[in-house]
């Protein structure tokens, strides 16, 4: 990569990017600030930005009232488990459609997406009855199943897109060197697709982490993830915004960490130059 960036260009880019970033991030920043305010302060006009009495009482209340760790652990298992299983099923499927396509490939892709067309509110009863019959209510495996299959089409689509980016000649070169398809998958494809796999993993873990319809309806206490934890702070009678902000900040924290780490993968671009 040989482009030299002028300092002026760098400055403009940086300022523009930071302004845009802050504007987009602002509501979340506001929410985190609210979590450190008292309830009265959180709703006060004029709103106070930084100069107010910072307090940890909301976090203490939230931590004392509900079992954050239990719910967080459930969230990690459900979101992580469902996404990983979906990836295991989706990687071969996406490979097949990207590199061994048939006439039916586009139709199959669209059909997969169509399995998500039913609004969850319309299919709540059948699923609830099914789960009740099979004793899967309030189980981690039940939640993992519904989230995995719900997100599977998305995972397949995203992986398919990224696999399509990879130039076929590289793969053919590897095959001509005698690599089997298995080897091809592991040693050639995967490293090149790492940014794509990373962003697919991140986005789908988040989708599963925040999924609030099925997790609220199909779990009770044993398998309840953080979405249930937050739901208990939402809109009771009385002031609650500061506490809800605190609960929500606690719920985002693990995802933020995940996001930060998976960022490194996104940075690495496909190094075609080197290969050529």
């Amino acid at each position, binding site marked *: 990569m040989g482009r030299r960036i002028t300092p002026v260009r760098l400055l403009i880019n940086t300022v523009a990017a930071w302004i845009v970033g802050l504007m987009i991030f602002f509501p979340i920043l506001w929410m985190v600030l609210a979590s450190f305010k008292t309830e*009265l302060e959180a709703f006060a006009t004029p709103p106070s930005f930084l100069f107010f009495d910072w307090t940890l009482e909301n976090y203490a209340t939230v931590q*004392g*009232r*509900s079992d954050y760790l239990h719910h967080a652990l459930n969230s990690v298992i459900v979101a992580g488990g469902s996404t990983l299983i979906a990836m295991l099923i989706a990687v071969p499927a996406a490979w097949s459609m990207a590199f061994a396509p048939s006439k039916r490939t586009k139709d199959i892709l669209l059909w997969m997406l169509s399995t998500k067309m039913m609004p969850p509110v319309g299919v709540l009863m059948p699923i609830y009855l099914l789960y009740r019959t099979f004793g899967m209510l*309030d189980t981690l495996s039940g939640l993992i199943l519904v989230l995995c299959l719900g997100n599977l089409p998305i995972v397949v689509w995203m992986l398919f897109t990224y696999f399509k980016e990879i130039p076929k000649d590289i793969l053919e070169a590897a095959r001509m060197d005698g690599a089997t398809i298995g080897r091809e998958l592991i040693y050639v494809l995967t490293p090149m697709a790492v940014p794509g796999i990373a962003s697919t993993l991140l986005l789908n873990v988040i989708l599963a982490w925040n999924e609030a319809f099925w997790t609220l*309806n199909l779990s009770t206490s044993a398998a309840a993830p953080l979405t249930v934890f937050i739901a208990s702070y939402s809109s*009771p*009678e009385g002031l609650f915004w500061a506490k809800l902000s605190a609960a929500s900040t606690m719920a985002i924290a693990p995802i933020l960490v995940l996001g930060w780490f998976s960022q490194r993968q996104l940075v690495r671009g496909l190094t075609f130059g080197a290969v050529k």
Partner: protein
Amino acid sequence: MKHRLGAIAGAISLFAAIPCFAQTTLTIATVNNGDMIRMQGLTGAFTAKNPDISVKWVTLEENVLRQRVTTDIATKGGQFDILTIGTYEVPIWAKQNWLVALDKLPADYDTGDLLPRIRDAASANGKLYAAPFYGESSMIMYRTDLFEKAGLKMPESPTWDFVVDSAKKLTDKSAGVYGICLRGKAGWGENIAFLTAMSNSFGARWFDEKWQPQFNTPEWKKTLTTYLDIMKVAGPPGASSNGFNENLALFNAGKCGMWIDATVAASFVTNPKDSKVADRVGFALAPNTGLGKNANWLWAWNLAIPAGSKKVDAAEKFIAWATGKDYIQLVASKDGWANVPPGTRTSLYQNPEYLKAAPFAKLTLASIDSADPNHPTVKPVPYVGVQYAAIPEFQGLGTTVGQQFSAALAGTTTADAALAAAQSSVEREMKRAGYIK
């Protein structure tokens, strides 16, 4: 030697491993209001007395709770051992035989001590099907300082004319003070609860004896136009999406001259920690038009046991503890009398310590007593319920009508159009459900 020690150790560990009695776990579904959260915190007191029972709490917001719990009980999902349900559900579910009748409660539970209206609302066919732990009505909360400044005096049982007039006089939009804050957010439990109660005081009703909807009557028109008129002149902006919480925040910040809403709000607005106007609040009965009904409602949260439960004994023990007299004493000793769950027992309202700590207690009791779910309206009706009709279809009906009325408040439709739309949609639904031909 080692051998024998090992055997003894093994025997001891075997004894330790087997509990003396089996552990029953109760899963309780409940609403996330202050009283329930307090009860969660006090669970230790129950489990100390009942070491063979452990308790798991599932706390949810009211609408989510209702949906979750109804889905579960209707499909016999068995996810919950104790349910928190409102007075809306009790008649409907008792009719379906979904609830266990609570006729085996211990004598010291003293069912006779329950406030009669509240007890009626939690019963069906003379039997108690759910144990009330929290009761409320609605009343007027007003700013004594603003009334004094305007030279007005609030009577104990004001008329709507007086309230409308005072609201207009108190409004000072440039200073950010609005004469009256009322619910406007669409929802059968939000604006419709308020408007239905208000309509009772104007002599209106949802259905006549033949289940024909009554939105095309002059009484409903008077109700809606009074509401819209007062909100336009004296209400805060954004009213059409304001529910209980938003109005509470406004009142606590000093922006409302009056607020008509749940009696429980009285404890929030007089709490100096949350309210800027805690020392300047007065209370009055909800307004009337002289027809014999006030514009207040009746609601209670109750604990109930689903039919077919295998843990009825343990559940009954918990319910008796949580809604009994001793629990009230417990809360009083830990958090003070002002934080005791209100609105369920006569003995509470005869207790001088409570009356001293809660200046709104007398009016709360008067409000509860004046709302009769079995005869909520001036004219006869085929349904029970003060601010709702206890039929399964009401949630949907209330939501649709609520949307229309909230649109009228937001100014996107007229009062007449809203009433006409309400009439036709409710008629359509009632025909489909088979109530009318």
